[in-house]
């Protein structure tokens, strides 16, 4: 089926070329980092994880969110999603690949990364994260490819794939819960040490992921003959609405716990992120943009008229996606390190090479997504 990705028009090749350019720039920047060390990034002794781990965390959520399409379709026979399950599964494949690349570029000794499997350590959440992520990648690739292959031949998918589909559904939340456990079990980091972390991760994932799928579905409809269907997009809009409300509520619960208890350690990271602390406030602008985008998204999503209108729904989806991209892909990780264990502040901001590497990985993910979507859509166009 791969040959279908090799035939395309001017726009398709232009886009692929553009992605390859970004990948190339990112790769060259990575070679520089490989030689010099992670010192070329904005990270430090105090803020020892930054953009890379943030993006990894955010993208695990996007990957897990495929379940909100696959579950209603397979378990509740919700036919409307039948046309877009593949979009969800292939988005999961691209996202998990990006996650793995973000982890890889964050390693100080990347050539030793297989030590995680050579010296398996069940007490380490990172060991489990490596296992659930690779398992999830395998499941989605297997399911997506098999279902698409059957579709191409005009037959229904083989029976043996069903258990894998069910397994993938159960597996999806696990990747994000385990990722939350990377953070929420650490004793000295107040921002992360909260039981609602995993719950909030799932809520933000199930709003940011489908938001991206709405945007992708609209792009696909504009550029190809394949129509994911208005009702599918509307259903995703309702899903985002509920999960975004839950996400914002969970965030408000965190604020209440911190500021009503008035325990300094709990308040400090929030004060730093949203109000500045001890005169430091480098993250204020992005964090407030995130809040404003969340408010805009909620207004457009909760109001039925703006949710039903596809233009305003698209704006709401973009606002949701970028709000959570900043919040989870940046603020959450950096905020956990500020103040440091000595109640001092070292600030963080990504450097140019660090940003170019991150951009290169996103381009790589989008290249995988483009190729997989191109194949899926060509098959759908041919069989339609």
């Amino acid at each position, binding site marked *: 089926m791969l040959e279908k990705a090799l035939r395309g028009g001017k726009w398709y090749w232009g886009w692929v070329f553009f992605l390859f350019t970004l990948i190339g720039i990112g790769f060259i920047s990575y070679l520089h980092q490989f030689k010099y*060390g992670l010192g070329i990034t904005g990270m430090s002794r*105090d803020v020892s994880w930054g953009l890379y781990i943030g993006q990894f965390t955010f993208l695990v959520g996007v990957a897990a969110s495929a379940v909100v399409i696959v579950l209603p379709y397979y378990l509740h026979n919700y036919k409307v999603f039948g046309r877009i399950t593949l979009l969800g599964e292939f988005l999961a494949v691209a996202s998990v690949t990006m996650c793995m690349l973000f982890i890889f570029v964050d390693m100080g000794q990347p050539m030793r990364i297989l030590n995680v499997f050579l010296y398996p350590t069940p007490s380490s959440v990172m060991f489990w994260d490596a296992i659930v992520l690779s398992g999830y990648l395998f499941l989605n690739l297997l399911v997506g490819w098999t279902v698409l292959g059957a579709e191409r031949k005009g037959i229904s998918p083989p029976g043996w794939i069903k258990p894998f589909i069910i397994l993938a559904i159960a597996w999806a939340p696990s990747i994000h819960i385990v990722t939350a456990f990377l953070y929420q079990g650490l004793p000295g980091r107040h921002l992360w040490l909260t039981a609602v972390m995993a719950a909030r991760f799932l809520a933000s994932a199930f709003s940011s992921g489908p938001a991206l799928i709405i945007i992708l579905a609209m792009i696909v409809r504009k550029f190809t003959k394949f129509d994911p269907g208005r009702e599918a997009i509307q259903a995703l809009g309702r899903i985002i609405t509920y999960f975004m409300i839950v996400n914002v509520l969970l965030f408000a619960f965190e604020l209440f716990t911190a500021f009503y208890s008035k325990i300094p350690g709990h308040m400090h990271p929030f004060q730093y992120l949203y109000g500045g602390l001890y005169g430091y406030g480098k993250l204020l602008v992005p964090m407030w943009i995130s809040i404003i985008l969340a408010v805009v998204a909620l207004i457009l999503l909760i109001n039925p008229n703006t949710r039903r209108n596809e233009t305003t729904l698209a704006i709401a989806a973009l606002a949701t996606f970028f709000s959570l991209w900043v919040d989870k892909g940046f603020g959450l990780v950096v905020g956990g390190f500020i103040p440091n264990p000595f*109640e001092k502040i070292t600030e963080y901001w990504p450097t140019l090479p660090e940003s170019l590497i991150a951009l290169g990985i996103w381009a790589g993910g989008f290249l995988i997504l483009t190729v997989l979507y191109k194949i899926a859509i060509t098959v759908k166009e041919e069989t339609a």
Partner: protein
Amino acid sequence: MGISRREFLKVAGLSAIAGVGGSWVLSIPAKRDAEAYEFLRHPKALTAKKWGMVVDLRRFKTQEDYRKVIEACHNIHNVPQFDNPKHEIKWIWTDTFKHAFPGQEHKYIMEKLEHKPFLLLCNHCENPPCVRVCPTKATFKSKDGGIIMQDPHRCIGCRFCMAGCPYGARSFNWRDPRPFVKKINPGYPLRTIGVVEKCTFCEERLARGLIPACVEASNGGLIFGDLGDPDSEVRTALRANYTIRRKSELGTEPSVFYIIEI
């Protein structure tokens, strides 16, 4: 009598499998690595149930007293000195009470305590979060004495231990440390780019019968010994003085104690 092509391939294939499989079987005993405990112990090696330290700040009076201790450690362990504070690597260092014991300070604290530098280092916790989170067992608790060790050759540089440590005891090699070590001590391995490092209670010295370098340079200000032995010097000091530990509420059970009396 000839042999057909098919038979030849059969025999050749089987021999290949037998050959590869056989050499694999033979290689098992040879490839097994020796465990650390199988090495012979140095006759003078110091041993303990649980190593611990008491910091007696009454003995630290001048800046020089602190400098001697810090330099003794950093010089023998080839700890690099970076200009950029973000890349800083430190095994033992000082900070004020407020930063060493956040949450314990108050507005009316005695002035002497407020400005007194406290020596900080890895706490060698009995219940170490860094060991729990490490995905490769590159950081581990030694069987002899419960020292929290760091294997710079296994570390993948994921820095999960740095997020896990509530004491900020761990440093990462953000860049090649070699040009930043003033005088390299050939007796101790220099770390490479991309790995985490920290104090190891001079495990390499204990193995040769020597006390930690900082203790040796401290003129009695750092008391080191076996917490498991009621008659040890540390236990005697702990019995005789009021001591506190950093963030003991986290349940990590630090093995470094501070005498509060100045």
